[in-house]
């Protein structure tokens, strides 16, 4: 994993810890573990992730549209950031 991706991952996990349901360990989730299916967040929390990505990385979803699959795992969210904003730290 590149240094930039690792930094983004740490930021994302910190954020998910803020919005997660109580009692579930976000830190133990792997990049491919399902966030909603694992019970960590509910499907409406995607809204918070959208806000996070807009504010932190300036991703414009009005053009992109929302593909819920891209929010399903930590790895998918990191891939989305890389595709949309490869230059942003």
């Amino acid at each position, binding site marked *: 994993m590149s240094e930039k991706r690792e930094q983004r991952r740490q930021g994302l996990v910190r954020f998910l810890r803020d*919005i997660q349901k109580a009692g579930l360990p976000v830190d133990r989730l792997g990049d491919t573990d399902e966030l909603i299916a694992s019970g960590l967040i509910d*499907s*409406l929390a995607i809204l*918070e992730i*959208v*806000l996070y990505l807009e504010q932190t990385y300036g991703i414009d979803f009005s053009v992109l*549209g*929302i593909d819920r*699959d891209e929010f*399903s795992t930590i790895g998918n969210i990191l891939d989305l950031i890389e595709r949309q904003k490869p230059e942003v730290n």
Partner: protein
Amino acid sequence: MIRLLQFHENSKVISGWLALAGPALKWLTPARRRTILIAGALWIALKRPLKQMTKAHVWSEVPPDLITAIVVTIIIFAFLWFCYWLALKFTSMPSFIRRNPQLCLHAFFWIILVVLWNTSPEGGIWRVVLVVLAINLPFLLWRLGYMLISAKHNKVAGTRFWEHLMYLAPVYGGTNTPYGKGLDFLSRHEAKDEEALARSQLAGIKLLILAVLWQGVRLIMDGLVFGINNPANQVLGGFTLAVPRLGQLLKQPEIASIGTAWVSLYCELIYNVLNLAVRGHQIIGILRLSGFYVFRNTYKPLLAETIVEFWNRYYYYFKEIMADFFFFPTFVSWFRKHFVLRLFSAVFMAAFFGNMYYHLIRLKYQLIQADFNAIWLTLHARLFYCFLLSLGIFISMLREHRRGRKPRPRRGLMQRGLSIFGVWTFFAIINIWNQKGGIPFVQVTKFFLRLIGII
């Protein structure tokens, strides 16, 4: 008890199931499972138009016989294949279609209706084709919508037309709401090996058991609470609480005291949840047995502590339609610099406009006949229901958002109980304006005012 309920996650049970059904699980590869569902879809695709035509032949020019059903099926298949072809060629479509695929899809339905409204019933075969499409489109629109969402994200390439039939003509059942959404969602939750299939099937068996259990509870409720003469009522020696159903109370409020009316309100809410749970568990149970380990449609909504949580758990796949086709497209486009306005517009677009629109296009026969009076009578009270629902969800989501960045406080049993009771009360009350039977808004509202002691 919890361990017993979670038997589908128990490694020993999974091993046991693998040993018991091993050869069958091995034979049921993803391709074979899909083939079975596709074969079922073909059967449904033939049966469904015949059933609809039988229902519609009283007023329509479409005669209900097998030959016509086959012709109708061919027409619908041609239409579905055309939509699939458009989805495959999505990137080369004109930019307006690429930007607004859902709008174009729904516009097509409304253009058909406008043509039907303005042409004579003796119009000929082309009109029969339009009637057939208009009858079938409300069932297909949200499913095709999911196909177009996939197309927008380049996920249709590599799929075959037949695979899409699994959810376009679902043998596992469903309403206009696509339980299990589209091919993309199904594929994402598909078991890829024997162990995953065993897990999925055990989870499906659990849901089917729960469906039987809730059916039993519903039967007891029918007999004990509502006084319906059924086996449960007979076992109780005819004893019943004789609580009137809400629909009956709205028509004849004088038949019960205020206290009984409140009891009826809560009972109706529980009964609605049971109904949805039974149907949803059956459908999702079959999907899971087929190796698609998708989310439940109903997941303990009566334990929800917030309005938005209840909404998320009560009727998941309907909520997903509202979220996918109305909420998120609005949320990412409107008022992006003002969070409150942004959330408000997205929630109202989904829970008010989307909800009303979904129920409007369900009235396909009235729409084809341009019976606007019947439509208004059926839906006008629902306008207020959707308004209250949207307002409740908006406030609940806003509170959740504002609380979101702080640690969630631990709450006692009493506090949780009060929250749950508050959620029950909210949904029980707004349900007054969500009753079938076209009861006038004024009559419904008077009932509510009587309930809270104003009149």
